[in-house]
């Protein structure tokens, strides 16, 4: 037989036995104490790296979102400020205008009041003047009438004198 002639292809039972022992021993020992923990550590690390990469990506996205949000907020604030300024300006203008209007109307009212008062005072003064003139005239007339009775020439000078004495203020 071919197997008998070639010693190289004849398996020795000794090596078969010891190799089985060695291989199974290695398989059990390495499987339990080396391959399992090693593979677990490697896959754990890979998972850790994957997780941290995902986390970094998420953080980056979050950061971008935050930045966008910030920008949006800033833009909104700017807009608000602009409107606020505009409104304030408008309000102040309105207030100024209102104040002006009010001042004007007040002035007009005061002027009108003053005129009314002046007119009243004027009228009152005129009335008083008229009354005084009246009473003076009556007084003069009374005096004249009393003098007339005595002297005609004197009477005239007297009237003249009286007339001078009346000062229409």
């Amino acid at each position: 037989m071919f197997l008998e002639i070639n010693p190289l292809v004849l398996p020795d039972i000794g090596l078969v036995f010891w190799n089985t022992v060695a291989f199974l021993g290695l398989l059990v020992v390495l499987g339990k104490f080396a391959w399992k923990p090693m593979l677990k550590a490697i896959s754990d690390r890979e998972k850790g790296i994957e997780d941290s990469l995902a986390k970094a990506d998420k953080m980056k996205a979050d950061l971008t979102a935050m930045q966008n949000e910030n920008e949006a907020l800033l833009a909104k604030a700017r807009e608000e400020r602009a409107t606020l300024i505009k409104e304030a300006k408008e309000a102040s203008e309105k207030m100024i205008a209102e104040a002006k209007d009010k001042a004007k109307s007040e002035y007009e009212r005061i002027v009108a009041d003053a005129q009314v008062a002046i007119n009243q005072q004027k009228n009152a003064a005129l009335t008083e003047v008229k009354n005084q003139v009246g009473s003076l005239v009556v007084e003069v007339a009374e005096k004249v009438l009393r003098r007339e009775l005595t002297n005609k020439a004197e009477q005239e000078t007297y009237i003249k004198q009286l007339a001078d004495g009346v000062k229409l203020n």
Partner: protein
Amino acid sequence: MVLQRLKPLLIVSFLSIFLLNATPLFANEKEAAAKEEGSFNVTQTILEHIKDDHSWHLWGHTSISLPVILYTPAGFEVFSSAKLIDEHHEPAVYKGNFNYKLVEGKAKILNAAGEVDVEASKKLWDFSITKNVASLFISVIVLLLVILTAAGAYKKTGITSAPKGLQSFMEPIVLFVRDEIALPNIGAKRYAKYMPFLLTIFFLILTNNFLGLIPIFPGGANVSGNIAFTMTLAVCVFIVVNLSSNKNYWEHIFWMPGMHWSMKLFLAPIELIGVFNKPISLMIRLFANITAGHILVLSLVCLIFIFKTVYAAAVAVPFVIFIFLIELLVAFLQAYIFTMLTAMYIGMASEEGHHDQAHH
């Protein structure tokens, strides 16, 4: 791969050259010529180097004696291999329960007349720690030391730090086995279960391939080029493949779906042969490739002794170095191929049949 295919051819051509040269020398009086001073039997020298031995030859007449463990109908017997060799380094008779003698390197039982008792020798089981077994044990110790140290580093440094030292040497290889061998062939769902098996096979073959390439003591044994070694691994692969097989796999073997019934009958025996053929091809591939490499290197070294001039070394040594470099590649390649095919067979046996469900 091309080199791989070419190598057996190269060896055959090398060997035929040697045999052609050697035959006229030794054809007539082979025994006498081999013992003659100065003559040199290439085939015998090479075979002695790649075969297993009961003692570990170091240099000259110095060798390490290894324990011989024999099991006979009379029970176990353990003694030193030195007792099977006399002071002239020739096989000697050792008287234990029986009379033992090494014939062509194998322990045999002698009868009263001093001849090999064939019947009794058949009942002799040799569990000796031979050179190959010792080398295998050395590789196991090396593997345990290296791999357990590397695995321990994960516990020490945790998973957050980058691998250091041995760990960073081992991790790429482990990742290679996982990502290039197990994952693509077995699939992400089931690969994890087979990783320890594949890794152990890969590293055991790789270590023994490399140890076999070292020409001096801790190496030099041809373990992974020994049929017993490759057969054991192939049997383990056969068992694992068949344990992981499912209904779909066996259906494809005995009753190929989507075929005419006559074709099914025709294919069944072929597929059944394939079940056994796969591990056998694993066994022969590793054995032949590693043994071929050893024969090639030894043949080139023997050139010096054939031409009986030191100047032959000028040709032989560069060639030997070149072949050694190729052997380094082959050592890795064969470990890879063995593991990859194992993974592929496991993947084929445990593949789920949804692909074929569509045909029904």
